[in-house]
């Protein structure tokens, strides 16, 4: 075997590493920027940088499996006649039919319904498969309004007005022609096979003052029955959350930069937005200042949630629920080693595949190819998702009990410490073993930054 470059004493540039070189070569060869799926791949401070302070002597834990630790959550109680009651705070994030196959949408509905949580539509409208299999379905109201119609709006259990997502705050979508099948095209009123550009702003309102009037209209049309969510990509989160509430949101969804996408420019995914860890405390501060945190307006956090520990940490920081996207797709079978050879043939590898825009997903999830899509058995995949959601819920419960909580929502920032200074500053919790929360000073004009000053 030939020795590797490192064995030969060659030194790789940290600046021009192999992925960077490949990116430059791709740009030079095609003249088009890289569009891909999945979320940010760079390392950013994340939930892994936080640890829980389990009970010991000063506090008492609850007995695992015996003593009660609830996980249910009510979403949208502020204005809606029918708020959502979910059994677990782990919900399924919006992913469109178009980006995903009908089978994948059905599987998401099956898995979520089995454990008593909600799924969410996406850009492209509501499908019968999805509505049929989802006990609780959140209907996204997006700038493109593809497939948007009042009949489906009334069929939904909640409405989510989407301003942006963590993978691309400020950007519109791009669904390449390979995925615009006749059915997708019909639902979106577009010619089949074209590259479809989604708008980044809504066509009939801009800004929170006009959003307030739009939300009023949505409530009027649905007779004030349904909770209205507002979803933002995490950037100036403190202000955005305050404005979402001012505009009338019952629930605010904050999607951090690790949040996935079906197809967005790589430069956007990696360079726009702030990590989920940094966004949650800003959102919580905004709600607390309005007197609505845990009373009136609920916060859903998303972007890189993978484990029950992540769920518990997001909730300890102040989220009422979380949403998962990429992790749910993996549970369905996305990037499964079962298709390793096919991923290789596509120039990728199992665990690395992110070309969701190409529509050639061997796992039959991010595709509109009927043959590929038929590979996904919605019943089996739904079961896998249900299993995964149960694990997330039980893991979060386990941690909550260890911290002495009878409900996962009772976790609080004081149960957390940080492993790194960066995470401590962003999450506004002390560095482990200290009482130090870095960055408790306000930069003029840059927005809020207050953390716990004391920790008794």
């Amino acid at each position, binding site marked *: 075997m030939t020795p590797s470059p490192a064995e030969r004493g060659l030194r790789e540039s940290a600046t021009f590493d192999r992925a960077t070189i490949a990116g430059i070569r791709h740009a030079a060869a095609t003249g088009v920027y890289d569009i891909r799926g999945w979320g940010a791949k760079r390392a950013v401070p994340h939930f892994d940088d936080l640890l829980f302070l389990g009970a010991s002597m000063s506090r008492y834990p609850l007995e695992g499996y015996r003593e009660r630790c609830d996980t249910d959550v009510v979403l949208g109680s502020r204005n809606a006649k029918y708020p959502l009651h979910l059994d677990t705070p782990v919900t399924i994030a919006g992913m469109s039919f178009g980006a995903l196959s009908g089978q994948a949408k059905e599987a998401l509905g099956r898995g979520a319904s089995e454990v008593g949580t909600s799924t969410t539509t996406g850009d492209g409208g509501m499908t019968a498969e999805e509505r049929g299999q989802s006990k609780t379905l959140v209907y996204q109201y997006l700038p493109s309004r593809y497939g948007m119609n009042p009949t489906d709006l009334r069929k939904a259990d909640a409405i989510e007005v989407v301003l942006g997502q963590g993978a691309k705050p400020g950007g519109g979508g791009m669904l390449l022609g390979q995925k615009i099948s006749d059915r997708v095209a019909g639902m979106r009123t577009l010619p089949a096979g074209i590259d479809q550009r989604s708008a980044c702003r809504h066509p009939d309102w801009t*800004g929170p003052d006009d959003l*307030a009037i739009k939300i009023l209209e949505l409530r009027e049309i649905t007779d004030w029955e349904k909770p209205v969510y507002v979803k933002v990509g995490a950037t*100036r989160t403190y202000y955005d959350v305050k404005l979402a509430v*001012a505009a009338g949101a019952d629930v605010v969804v904050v999607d951090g930069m690790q949040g996935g996408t079906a197809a967005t420019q790589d430069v956007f995914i990696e360079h726009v937005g702030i990590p989920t860890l940094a966004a949650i405390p800003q959102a919580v501060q905004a709600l607390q200042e309005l007197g609505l945190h845990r009373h009136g307006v609920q916060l859903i956090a998303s972007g890189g949630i993978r484990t029950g520990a992540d769920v518990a940490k997001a909730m300890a920081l102040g989220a009422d629920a979380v949403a998962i996207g990429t992790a749910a797709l993996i549970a369905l079978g996305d990037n499964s080693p079962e298709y390793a050879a096919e991923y290789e043939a596509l120039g990728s590898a199992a665990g690395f595949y992110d070309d969701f825009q190409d529509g050639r997903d061997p796992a039959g999830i991010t595709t509109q190819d009927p043959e590929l899509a038929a590979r996904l058995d919605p019943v089996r995949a739904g079961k896998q998702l249900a299993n995964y959601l149960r694990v997330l819920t039980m893991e979060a419960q386990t941690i909550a009990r260890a911290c002495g909580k009878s409900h996962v929502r009772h976790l609080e920032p004081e149960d957390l410490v940080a492993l790194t200074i960066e995470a401590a500053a962003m999450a506004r919790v002390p560095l482990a073993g200290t009482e130090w929360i870095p960055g408790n000073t306000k930069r*003029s004009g840059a*927005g809020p930054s207050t953390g716990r000053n004391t920790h008794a």
Partner: protein
Amino acid sequence: MCGIVGLHLRDPDLYPRLGRLMASMLDGVVERGPDSAGVAVYGDTRRVPEGHAAVSVLLPPDADPSGLGTQVTAAGDTTIIAAPIGVDDLVARVTTAFPTATVVGSGEDLAVYKGTGHPAALATTYDVAGASGWQALAHTRMATESAVTPEGCHPFSVGPDQCLVHNGSFSNHATIRRELEREGVRFDSENDSEVGARFVASRLAQGEDLEKALLALRETFDGFYTLLVTSAQGFAVVRDPIACKPAVIAETDAWVAMASEFRALTGLPGIDSARLYEPEPGKVYAWTR
């Protein structure tokens, strides 16, 4: 992100009714800006007696301004000090006496009120309905990125008898602020709209007219805006070239009115036969006395 209303009277018979008309207009944009409200009135001789200059000021707590002018009135967070001297002299007198005070308006014809709270309550505090005069504007605020304080409230009145109110959000104001600061301009708030007001004031100070100053603003500022700008001469409206933020103009022989929404105009006399239109993107509309 806010509501804007403005009224420029052509018919002097309406001058005594200015306040009542303004109060009904303000009521129509309350929901657009629940955080705070500001009002500017031109030509109310009860508030600014003839031959007087007036300074509208946010004073520090416990300040006693009674000796600074011949007429001192307070309404909510704002105090209006009038004296029969030049505008610059009066501003200097007030800021010397209270170095931490914020001057929110000055001129020979202008009274400005700013404060936080519900706009409907503030309209009573300011006695908007009791105002007379030839021109007025009002603003209700839904704060975007700066604090909800009286200083951050509109209008921004940073030159003699000038006011600017803004609906929208500038997206390159930090750089323009730094450039203005380098030229010696001082700021009272972190508000993006204040940057617009200071920019216009610096252009007017260089001798440009309102229309030219607003065209320069259009070339310099990014972001979405509907702006209403007033001066001792008149009244101007401009929207950014994409023009997402709303604006309606109504005109009759007796008045010109501008509002974020039509419903703020419904109480105006003769509204049913007024010429109603929306300002085109990037175009400056100006009226002078």
